[in-house]
């Protein structure tokens, strides 16, 4: 494998980021040693930083030091700072996934957000459902969660029954989306 540039050649990198739902445009430029010149929404600073472990970054900015912990999560990184989590993704990524941990209802395929057991089926194949209507009730960790229709349409198939154990990615219900609706 060959690289055309070495890291030393790179002076500035541009970013368009989303922190939860806030936009940040940023640039980062390597200074000497463990320092970076960054510009965040137009404000420039020099930050000092050090990687303590794979997950742990020690960062000094504005004269104060902080310990941040970084986790790669679906489509971005979650940064832990003082007990709060910041989910950051590249705003230029096209496959805009939902916030991690959310119900992943992509297209017409309804899949559970976590391993769970099916408690009740609320919709039958062939039935029309409105957006937001309950399709299937799951239980995990002694709590019930209802998966709802991501848009209005017709139920094509229900692939599980009450009592089944289901996993994220598994398609529980498929819906044929209505034409001519805005959502």
């Amino acid at each position, binding site marked *: 494998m060959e690289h055309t540039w070495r890291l030393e050649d790179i002076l500035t990198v541009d970013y368009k980021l989303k922190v939860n739902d806030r936009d940040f445009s940023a640039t980062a430029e390597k200074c000497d040693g463990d320092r970076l010149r960054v510009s*965040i929404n137009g404000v420039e600073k020099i930050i000092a*930083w050090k990687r303590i472990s794979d997950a742990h970054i020690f*960062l000094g900015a504005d004269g104060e030091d902080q310990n941040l912990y970084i986790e790669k999560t679906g489509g971005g990184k979650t940064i832990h700072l003082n007990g709060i989590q910041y989910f950051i993704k590249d705003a230029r990524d096209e496959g805009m996934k939902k916030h991690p941990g959310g119900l992943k209802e992509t297209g017409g395929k309804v899949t559970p957000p976590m391993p769970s057991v099916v408690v009740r089926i609320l919709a039958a194949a062939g039935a029309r459902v409105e957006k937001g209507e309950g399709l299937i009730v799951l239980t995990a*960790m002694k709590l019930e969660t209802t998966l709802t229709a991501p848009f209005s349409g017709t139920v094509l198939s229900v692939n599980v029954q009450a009592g089944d154990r289901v996993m994220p990615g598994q398609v529980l219900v498929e819906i044929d989306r209505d034409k001519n609706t805005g959502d």
Partner: protein
Amino acid sequence: MFKKILIANRGEIAVRIMRTCREMGIGTVAVYSEPDSSALHVLEADESVCLGSGEPASSYLSIDKIMSAAREKGAGAIHPGYGFLAENPEFVRRCESERIVFIGPPSGSMLKLGDKVRARETMKKEGIPVIPGFSRLNAGYGDMEKAAEEIGYPVLIKAAAGGGGRGMRIVLSREKLKDSAASASSEAMSAFGDGRIFIEKYIERPRHVEFQVLADSHGNAVHLMERECSIQRRFQKIIEESPSPALSPSLREEMGMAAVKAVVASGYVNAGTVEFILDREGRFYFLEVNTRLQVEHPVTEMVTGIDIVRKQLEIAAGGKLSLSQGDISARGHAMECRIYAEDPELNFAPSPGRISFLKEPHGPGVRVDSGVYGGFTVPFEYDPLLSKLITHGETREINIMRMLQALRNYIAMGIKTTIPFMIDIIGSVPYMKGEIHTGFIDEHFMNWRPDMKGAELAVMAYLADDIFPVKKPAPVSAGQSSPWNTLGGWRIY
């Protein structure tokens, strides 16, 4: 003392019980379900027995399997922890008939206290205050109206089959009683298939205050002070503390005496908890007795310096309480935050899965009773409680600061936890002032969202991590430190 006991539970409470056993030189047998085969309570036990699949009914709730594991391993006693079989009189009777000691109350006492109406009558007879109410469930509307008049408005209508707030109505005056009763009854009918309702005095902004008690089989009983457990979500305690900011020394003494009277009256033996409702005027009412070790028992351990599990074992082995009430005093302030695998930003949806990284806080006055470890996959079959973070400090004010630091230094990755939510509750002005009641979260934290004030720093860390990513270790050279390069010594058959 027992040589070996079986712990019929999982998670943090099983681990915590084993810790005391180990200090007492008592052998421990864990039981587990398939998804728990690498769970911390299995790793911490001396021996373990797999009960079956993940469904509680075929593992932690299977009386037959647990009894047979105890016999197989030669356990002299069973500690039930909390939840699962802990308050199941049938299980206690099985232990009694198979002559394996149940570490908890006798079945008779558990039965007596498990029936809430009967328990209430027992306490009333003893002169312990109960919430004024009317429980002749099949009476007519006229009787109910008369009773409401006697109790005094506002009153609370509750469904007999109750739970989750359904069939519940607050009635401010007589004019509203009839309509409210009708709608509550019909709601209860559709929710529970049982339209029966009853009324009791409505207590505004009540506090939940409970007393830890210990009673031996020789008739001695003491209390270990109170815990205030008013911070609740979905009727589930999430933060507990001791002492309660609401109790004066005289009220504490009065309630403590009532608690001791309650356990003596019911023939209770072992550790238990007497729960009270405390109103804003400092009047308290008996609620129920929990006939087991409570989730929040460490709060009491921290302020009294007493290991409650050790006392449970001593009492179960027939020992006499070595403590009298005068020996017991509270020092400083203790509190507990329950750390759940739930996503507080997504309506507290459960968040099972693999904990990819875990860094638990530590330091003076900080205790973590944990049931998990980094690398463990939190199963979806059970309660989302990962651990309990308990802190102890000289005063409530000092301790709140300590807890805040501990929460901020608790890093769990791969799953979501309630830590950010806890931080904001503990750090809020009404919490700090001690102005808490069971409706506290609904009042102050209904539409909670985390404060994103660190977003810019998080962006900086993202940039640094992105520009200089982690260097992955070099790929393993085939067979390095594996049998492949030491073939000389092998026999291949």
